């Protein structure tokens, strides 16, 4: 008897669960153009206003994923059929240089958005600033807009520039994890070299070794990290980063060329608590 009763109760409970699931209709998903994006600033010329967006609404030193929209001043409509490229430059007191940046593509799944990334290897200061030029053409008509943009220093190190043992100047930028978790995080890094003041192409076939450490806790590490190798799809370097707790982590780096020679960075030992090249993550 007792068992029968228990079974009946179980069946009823299961039935109830299914009923409540099936009545739980999900609402149609409304995709907003600007979901998760905040405006950084506007760049204006006579015909158009370029709206720059990022997740945080700001730019900072290091890697920045940037979206933009082009608003026709006359029609107040957003252009959906433009060809866009951009050129960030930093005007310093003695020289001018560019930085690594991607092409701009139409954002898939969106009507009016275009996106790409820029890696600012330096932060602005009171005398020296970054300028962004956006070139676009609509129906064969080319236009351009340019303005100063604010690139403050990041609180944690997200980009590192150095000269490798091969004499080349390299630049590493931390792309992911952008929202680090206590977990095995997917890690993405961009590896660039400075071939001229204006040219920072992606480097192919290298390897980035990582060793995350917590300096405030006896410099302990974490297990099962996977060194970063280049993906043939996005040309960026991908690996896995284990973070066993929240707090401040120093991601010690070593850059290896295609012959597995260390170009920069040191292995961590008791005597060498930190590599000369590293990223910082705090969460």
């Amino acid at each position, binding site marked *: 008897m007792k068992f029968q009763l228990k079974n009946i109760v179980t069946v009823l409970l299961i039935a109830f669960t299914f009923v409540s699931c099936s009545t739980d209709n999900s609402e149609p998903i409304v995709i907003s153009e600007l979901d998760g994006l905040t405006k950084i600033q506007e760049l204006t010329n006579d015909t158009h206003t370029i709206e720059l967006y990022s997740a945080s609404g700001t730019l900072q030193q290091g890697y920045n994923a940037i979206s933009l929209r082009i608003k026709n001043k006359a029609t107040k409509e957003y252009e959906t059929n433009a060809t866009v490229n951009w050129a960030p430059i930093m005007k310093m007191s003695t020289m001018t240089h560019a930085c690594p940046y991607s092409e701009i593509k139409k954002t898939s799944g969106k009507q009016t958005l275009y996106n790409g990334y820029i890696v600012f290897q330096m932060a602005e200061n009171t005398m020296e600033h970054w300028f962004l030029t956006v070139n676009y053409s609509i129906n064969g008509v080319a236009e351009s807009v340019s303005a100063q943009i604010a690139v403050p220093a990041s609180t944690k190190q997200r980009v590192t520039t150095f000269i490798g043992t091969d004499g080349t100047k390299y630049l590493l930028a931390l792309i992911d994890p952008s929202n680090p*978790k*206590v*977990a*095995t995080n997917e890690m993405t890094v961009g590896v660039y070299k400075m071939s001229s003041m204006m040219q920072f192409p992606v480097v192919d076939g290298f390897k980035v070794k990582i060793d995350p450490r*917590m300096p*405030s*806790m*006896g410099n*302990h*590490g*974490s*297990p*099962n990290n996977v060194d970063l190798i280049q993906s043939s799809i996005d040309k960026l370097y991908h690996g896995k980063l*284990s973070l*066993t*707790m*929240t*707090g*401040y982590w120093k991601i010690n780096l070593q850059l290896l060329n295609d012959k597995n020679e260390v170009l920069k960075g040191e292995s961590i030992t008791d005597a060498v608590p930190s590599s000369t090249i590293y990223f910082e993550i*705090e*969460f």
Partner: protein
Amino acid sequence: MVVEQFSQIKKAKTSYILAFILRFIMKKIIFSWALFCLAIASIYGQEQTKDTIAPNNLNEVIVIGKKSEISQKQVKPLASIDEYLQQSGKIEMIKRGGYAWEPVLNSMATERTLITIDGMRIFGACTDKMDPISSYIEVSNLSEASIKSGQQGACHGATIGGAIDLKRNRSSFNDLGWKTSVNTGFETNSNQKIFGTAVNYVSDSFYIDTDFMYRDADNYSGGNSQKVLFSQFRKFNISATSGVLIDKNKLVEGSIIYDKATAVGYPALPMDVSLAEALITSLKFEYVPKSKKLTSDLALTNWETKIYYNTITHKMDDTKRPAVPIHMDMPGWSDTYGFYSKIKGVIENHHFNVDLNSFYNRSIAEMTMYPSDPNENLMFMYTWPDVRTFYGSLFLEDNIALNAASSLKFSVSLGNHFNEVADQLGLESLQIFYPNMSKSKSRILKSISANYLHYQNGFEYGLGIAYGERAPSVSEGYGFYLFNSFDRYDYIGNPGLKNENSVEGNAYLGYKNKSFSAKLTSSYFHISNYIVGKPDATVLPMTIGASGIKVYTALDYATIFNTDLNLEYQFDSHFKAKGQLVYNYGKDLENQNLPFISPLRYSTALNYKKDRFSAEIMIQGNATQTQYSPFYGEDRTPDYAILNLTSSYLFAINESKLNVRAGIENVLDTYYSTFSDWNNIPRKGRNFFLNVTFAY
């Protein structure tokens, strides 16, 4: 009658050794070890009450109290529950300080054994085992500790080493009216002050038992007056049990225990405890059929059902310690909901017992570390990632009286053990080590045992074989960077561990006449998939100063053998001698020693009693620990022997009884540490104690 059920109090069985009968003992040992060889499997022992019709499965019982009074048979009635348990030849205590010792049963610690309070499952909330279940009760709550070896403890859940059921006090309907007692004690060594009361009331169909106990101890001193810093503790315990008898054969009983310890020092560990708090509640329904015979053959004798809930909060504290490398908070919580329902009955010569039981436990522990730079974010992680355990099992036992002198007992149980990691952060933390780990895991746990008992002309012997399984503990399965200050490794749980299982053999041999009793019991366990931590040199430790990482893995097998001999001799109406000799052995498959295996240990006592006066002299000691295990952080522990003296006098004034007991423990102030003292902390030096109990 239900009344009889409730008033039944098990007789204590304690025995000791005496030098002048050593030759006799040796003969016994040789004889029973021959017996051991005869048994195909290995051997194990149990003690047995005299009821030959229904052999009792109790292995050993330590009487703690009776109704409102704490047992006056004890040398030190207001001793801690830990000190009571330690009297058993099957139990050792791992000591991390002055309080909350961890019981080790048959050379197996918490993971492999069960401790229950009146059959209730309770799980400690400390990742460092600072809070064994026995730390949440008081001697004033308890009537006895029933110790069952190996699979004979399977009625309380899945176990390898056995079970200790701590049985609550309960008023008997035989003794109506009010009963009050006041207990107070003082110990010089730790400046421990003990105060307790018990107030009980019984009417024809109602009873209520309440008690209160408070202990406050400073740091104790080892031998030669060496202060053991951070060994202080303070705790109080309050409990109530109340029952209503309906129709003379149905009983409804509610029970509650609240226990709170603060500022508990753990000198052997890097941290102390600022709070250890438990609330333990239950509601029981008991039914004794008026007409026991259901059919001409079948009779039901008792049906007991209980639902229970308990919640434990544990907060560790390093703020009192000088120079901690990094300050951290480590709180833990454990909540358990459970029930059991058991029916006892008789069919012809079969005494059977059916027990359906289940529990649901939620264990969470976390760790927050404070960086020295206050601008840095706090470092947080789960050390127990909100692990839910759901267990249900059916236990069946049949006790067959073969004839007036012998009986056979079988038991089987089948349980389902389900674990789930409920916290996403916790799950993803563990997935750093086990990328393919799933959120939950289900296991089937089986147990089967058979025992044969024979009793004739004062001689009794028993043989048993059994098989049992257990699931990994929360720490073994899901622990995340648990620092073990004994071997100084950080431990990582392993959710993929197989069930640990044990094939067990046991035997005992006893003899008893008017003035002499002797009992030799032995048990042997062959444990497969024996769960231990194995160093993983590829992973860096987290704790500052740790030697490395150990990941829980399983050895193919390990073996454990325990034997204990208890002797008692009554010279005349005044003098009685007791002795106990215990030998344990534990090795893994590579013949490496297992940790916390006792060296040869002994105790012997001579007792004098005349009218209301009694006195006892006792020597207790260990041989040198030669079979220690450096792999688990052990070193060689030298031998020791200590001398204790006690005396007591019972004043009877009308209906009231005043018992005054005074004694000196470790009279010679010997400095010593035992094999089970965590990090070799010294045991208490000379200690004068005074226990006064007044009952009316």
